[in-house]
């Protein structure tokens, strides 16, 4: 936004006064509304434009008229005025933002995984810890198979085989990289990244498996970290529906980790298609698992334990982290009648309808027959309120307390409603289709 000119305190007041005095208050010769409109549209020929510009520059009435036209153009729509101040996810936003964020998270996680993957040496860090002079095994490929062609194979090992001290140093450096990668991931993706970061942190902090022999300090930390990561991924892999069964060995688990990351874009496309078929059902299912929007999806704050994280993930079924992310971002939808007497409604969490009669100081929950998420509402008076939502949901309250669901002319997502009273309203679907009723929703006419 462009800043206004800096004030000139010694001149502005006098200039304002002089401008007011310099105008002609007579309306003689003022043009009709069509000329002012053409002036605004710059549709007048140059000579005519100059003529009217000269008139407008000294005519108080026309200046006011032009100002009103400009204000009428610049103000937001009434529907937009009802939207909450804070960010509210919109259907169109979900379509591209969700894949974009998860793709970014997948890429970041992939890079992190590539950085952490052993370039040469035992497939298990624990095994590595127990061996002191083992020869260097073949390099682990991206698929976890030493003899498979490497899709994301890293360059040749940087650590010579047989030199344990060098290996320890390299692994410590990778562990450090892993921490940095997790932090970067958290910065790029507020929720999922934090979950991954928490998971990584918990692995190195709380879940150290017992080792047979006390290895060197740095090596032990890396061994703990990798062992726990492998164990958890081996358990979580079947639930993630990546199409790949977890292997028995930690190395196999790691391969699942890498493979899943690499499959993220494809899975994203698949999920996007599935969402287009039943977006509402998925979000509803997601919401059933999350009662508090701010709750972290799979690894809530204060629960660093991997077991608890796994339970949360198992409870979430298909672990729709992305959907949880957006569910957590949903903020209340405020519906304020124009009367300004303090009565207002809000939709909490997309489902719960609450009403306040004291300018929002206290809210009373109202029973709602809605089976789907609610998207928008409009209250033409203190007692009448219309609310629309997914799957063609249309609700109305005519007494300010009780809600009933109306028959819908469409099964599409409804994103906007404007009502005149309890009988007349116009609804807008996500596709842009609009329907109007004049008989309290008994019949709907397409517009």
């Amino acid at each position, binding site marked *: 936004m*462009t800043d206004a000119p800096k004030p000139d305190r010694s001149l502005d007041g*006098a200039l304002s006064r002089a401008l007011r*005095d310099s105008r002609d208050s007579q309306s003689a010769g003022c043009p009709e509304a*069509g000329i002012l409109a053409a002036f*605004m549209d710059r*549709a007048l*020929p140059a000579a*005519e434009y100059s003529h009217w510009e000269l008139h407008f520059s*000294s005519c108080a009435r026309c200046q006011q008229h032009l100002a009103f036209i400009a204000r009428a153009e610049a103000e937001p729509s009434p529907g937009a005025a009802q939207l909450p101040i804070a960010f509210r996810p919109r259907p169109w936003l979900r379509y591209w933002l969700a894949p974009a964020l998860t793709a970014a998270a997948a890429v970041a996680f992939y890079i992190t995984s590539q950085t952490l993957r052993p370039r040469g040496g035992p497939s298990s860090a624990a095994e590595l810890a127990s061996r002191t002079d083992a020869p260097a095994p073949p390099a682990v490929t991206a698929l976890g198979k030493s003899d498979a062609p490497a899709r994301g194979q890293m360059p040749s090992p940087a650590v010579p085989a047989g030199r344990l001290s060098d290996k320890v140093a390299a692994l410590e450096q990778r562990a450090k990289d892993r921490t940095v990668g997790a932090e970067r991931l958290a910065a790029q993706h507020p929720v999922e990244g934090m979950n991954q970061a928490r998971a990584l942190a918990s692995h190195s902090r709380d879940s150290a498996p017992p080792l047979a022999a006390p290895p060197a300090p740095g090596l032990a930390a890396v061994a703990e970290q990798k062992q726990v990561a492998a164990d958890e991924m081996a358990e979580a892999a079947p639930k993630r529906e990546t199409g790949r069964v977890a292997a028995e060995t930690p190395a196999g688990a790691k391969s699942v980790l890498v493979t899943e990351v690499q499959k993220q874009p494809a899975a994203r496309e698949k999920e996007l298609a599935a969402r287009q078929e039943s977006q509402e059902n998925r979000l509803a299912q997601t919401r059933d698992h999350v009662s508090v929007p701010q709750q972290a999806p799979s690894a809530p704050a204060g629960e660093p334990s991997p077991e608890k994280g796994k339970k949360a993930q198992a409870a979430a079924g298909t672990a729709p982290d992305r959907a949880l992310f957006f569910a957590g971002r949903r903020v209340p939808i405020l519906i304020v009648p124009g009367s300004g007497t303090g009565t207002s409604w809000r939709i909490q969490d997309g489902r719960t309808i609450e009403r306040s009669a004291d300018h929002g100081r206290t809210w009373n929950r109202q029973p709602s027959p809605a089976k789907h998420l609610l998207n928008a509402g409009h209250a033409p008076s203190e007692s009448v309120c219309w609310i629309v939502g997914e799957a063609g949901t249309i609700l109305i309250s005519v007494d300010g307390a009780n809600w009933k669901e109306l028959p819908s002319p469409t099964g599409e997502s409804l994103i906007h409603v404007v009502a005149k009273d309890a009988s007349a309203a116009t609804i807008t679907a996500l596709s842009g289709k609009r329907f109007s009723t004049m008989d309290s929703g008994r019949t709907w006419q397409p517009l």
Partner: protein
Amino acid sequence: MASLRSIAEFQRVHGALLARLHSQASTAGHFLAAPRFAEAMYRSALSHFTGAAAPANPGHASDGAVAQFLESLHVADLSLATACADGVPEAWDFFVAEFRPALYTASRALAGDAGPELADSLYADLFGLEVREGRRRSLFDYFHGRSKLSTWLRSVLAQRQIDRLRAASRTVSLDAAGDSPQEAPSAEASAARTALATSATSPSADPDRPRYLASLQAALAEAIKSLPPKDRLRLSSYYLQDLTLAQIGKILGEHEATVSRKLDRTRRDIRSAVERQLRENRRLSDAQIQLCFEYAQEEWPFDLTRALS
């Protein structure tokens, strides 16, 4: 103006152009038959070259000028408006779908909670509830296609809202309506009146204060008068109408950054012109000129929150 003598002559001279424009207008929908479309175009041309706005159009109404005028019209919107005035159902369906939401949005922006009422009254006039001489008169009859239909609707709404506000202000006492333009006096008279009032109420002991203020006001009036019309309109929109830079830009067809820059430049020009005039015509010293501005700042404090917003 030969082609405007009659509709038949108009169609004969501009037949090819009318056919092309009719085809162009039909992109939004085939609302009007060609003869009715030609009538609408003829009505617009007649209004432009012989109506109330004719004095603003210094060009000669030759056939070429008429053709150029016809080319400049928003023919699709004119066709839609004429069809709506004729009561064509398809045209009304299109209008309701395309323009009615914007109409209510604009009316709410202008009148707040009374917006729907304002829009409904306009809507009724557009529909043509009034019947004169056996013919239903629609407000659409006054749309000549010189602007976009949406802009015209906003302009009509704005006009009605101004009329409503003025009608309401007549019921207010004249003391309360002191800021109304009806009582705007000449600059000199205003300055003198201000000076008198100031001399009576000011705590300053400077006996020259009224003279300084009057001189400053007169110099400011001269400087404003010498401004180009666009600069004057820009200043008035900013200082008197309280429009944002973006809204001023919409009026003048400028980017808001340009508006800000030009406002700043114009104000600097005004200041230097005023100082020059006070120095040369009023024989004031630099210290006295400085005193003029200080007294003005005391006398007419400007709303800094407005300027900084």
